[in-house]
């Protein structure tokens, strides 16, 4: 938000916004997600995701941005990408088990995200801290939403991951940076960037900046 000469934001403070963001009910979202379902979501909606998530963080984003291909088995068309470097162990039966899986800071992927949303046909990106203008634009143009998970809630979120069927690029990128496939049930997140061009992060920044001006 560009401040004008008085240092106040150009947009009027929308403190009413805070009252609007009450939760009516958790919206169930299943993968693959249709464009219509995504277009129907708005900032402040709480969703519970059931189906498949693929993780991807810095190494994967750079690789895809530079034209790298997804390995066979990873289908992200209509899919949801999770910014996460999980802690995963092998249990006694030799199955992967996720023991901690909170979101990582998303803004690091801002240079790459818009192109990846377009190229892969993503319908959702999960992370924390929000993303910038390019991603907001891409969400609007291609029909995608940014879903904010609760940062630090590694145990609650790991409980929603019922199975870890596969991992891809383990050798290439190492465990935290690999593409992990998660089967999730009712994975909780909040829509903070919707497909209409709205960003909760932008709105709250402007409103809190205007509010702060009253007290300093």
């Amino acid at each position, binding site marked *: 938000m560009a401040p004008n000469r008085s240092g106040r934001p150009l947009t009027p403070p929308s*403190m009413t*916004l*805070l009252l609007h*963001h*009450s*939760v009516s009910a958790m919206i169930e979202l299943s993968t693959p997600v249709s464009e219509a379902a995504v277009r129907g979501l708005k900032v*402040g909606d*709480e969703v519970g995701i059931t189906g498949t998530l693929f993780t991807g963080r810095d190494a994967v984003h750079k690789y895809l941005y530079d034209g790298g291909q997804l390995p066979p088995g990873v289908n992200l068309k209509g899919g949801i990408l999770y910014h996460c*470097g*999980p*802690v995963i*162990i092998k249990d006694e039966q030799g199955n992967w088990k996720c*023991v*901690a*899986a*909170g979101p*990582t*800071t998303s*803004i690091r992927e801002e240079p790459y995200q818009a192109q990846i949303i377009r190229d892969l046909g993503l319908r959702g990106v999960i992370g*924390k*801290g*929000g993303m910038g203008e390019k991603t907001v634009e891409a969400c609007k143009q291609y029909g995608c939403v940014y879903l*904010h998970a*609760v*940062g*630090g*809630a*590694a*145990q*609650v979120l790991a*409980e929603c991951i019922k199975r870890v069927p596969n991992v891809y690029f383990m050798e290439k990128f*190492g*465990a*935290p940076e690999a593409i992990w496939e998660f089967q999730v049930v009712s994975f*909780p997140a*909040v829509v*903070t960037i919707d497909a209409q061009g709205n960003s*909760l*992060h932008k709105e*709250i*920044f402007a*409103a*809190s*900046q205007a*509010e*702060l001006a009253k*007290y*300093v």
Partner: protein
Amino acid sequence: MYSNQWQRWLTSIGGALSLRTMNGLQNSLLELVRRTSAEIPDDVHKAILDSLEREKQGTIAASAMKIIEQNIALAKNKSQPICQDTGSIIFYVDCPQGFDQLGFEQAAREAVKLATKKGYLRQNSVDSITGKNDGTNVGPGSPAIHFHQHASPEVSVRLVLKGGGCENVGAQYSLPNEKLKAGRDLDGCRKAILDAVLQAQGKGCGPGILGVCIGGDRATGYEFSKQQFLRKLEDSNPNPELDKLERDIVETANKLGIGPMGFGGKTTLLGTKIGVLNRLPASYFVSISYMCWAYRRQGVTLDSNGGIQKWLY
């Protein structure tokens, strides 16, 4: 001068800790790491419960606080990390004159390696040039250990685990700051601190806790700001002016509507702690460290065999 109980520490003056004490110490530090990573201290837990109460039911802020509360309980019951980013590992050691610091450092490094193997800590320390992670969490600067000699036979060890998300939103201001109209006085400090809150929004995993240092140089300022996290949330600053400022920062920040995770809401900060160091006439730094809600801090006093005598938080 010291009671018998402490003789064993003191026999190490000028020499190494005995093998028995080393083993006891290593086990105690391992338990300190486990508990710090998996359990929120009581004072912070109380502040989180208060803020859960304060947030309006049915808002996304209240939902976020509920998930945080569930996460605290789950981590404790499962004895697993509260957050997968188990953070920078920072030890603060108060010890008597002649205490074997080299022996302590060795025990701390071994305890950190073991804690990482056991999954209390994520493999979280990377060579800054090559990007290599050797999976031990031990390397240049990790763990960080600060020794403080005191005129008492007691040995106490405090540990802070601080994640990268909140570390990244820390800020250092050099006053005067024209843009903020912040001069070289407490009002200027207040403006700088509140600007840091605004810039951080929810990105440091709020509701957060600020550790602030007024004065010092660029290095000591940040260092001392982190030491403020050793204070209990409910304590009062002995300096009445700073105490007033601490309360004012929390109250004002909570009027801004940033809220948990930056979702909007009533709780932006759980606390602010401010310390002061002398400065050069030419410098006036305000250094601000942000701690996430997953405020991992614990401490112990040790007995003469290196065993845990008492928990400090």
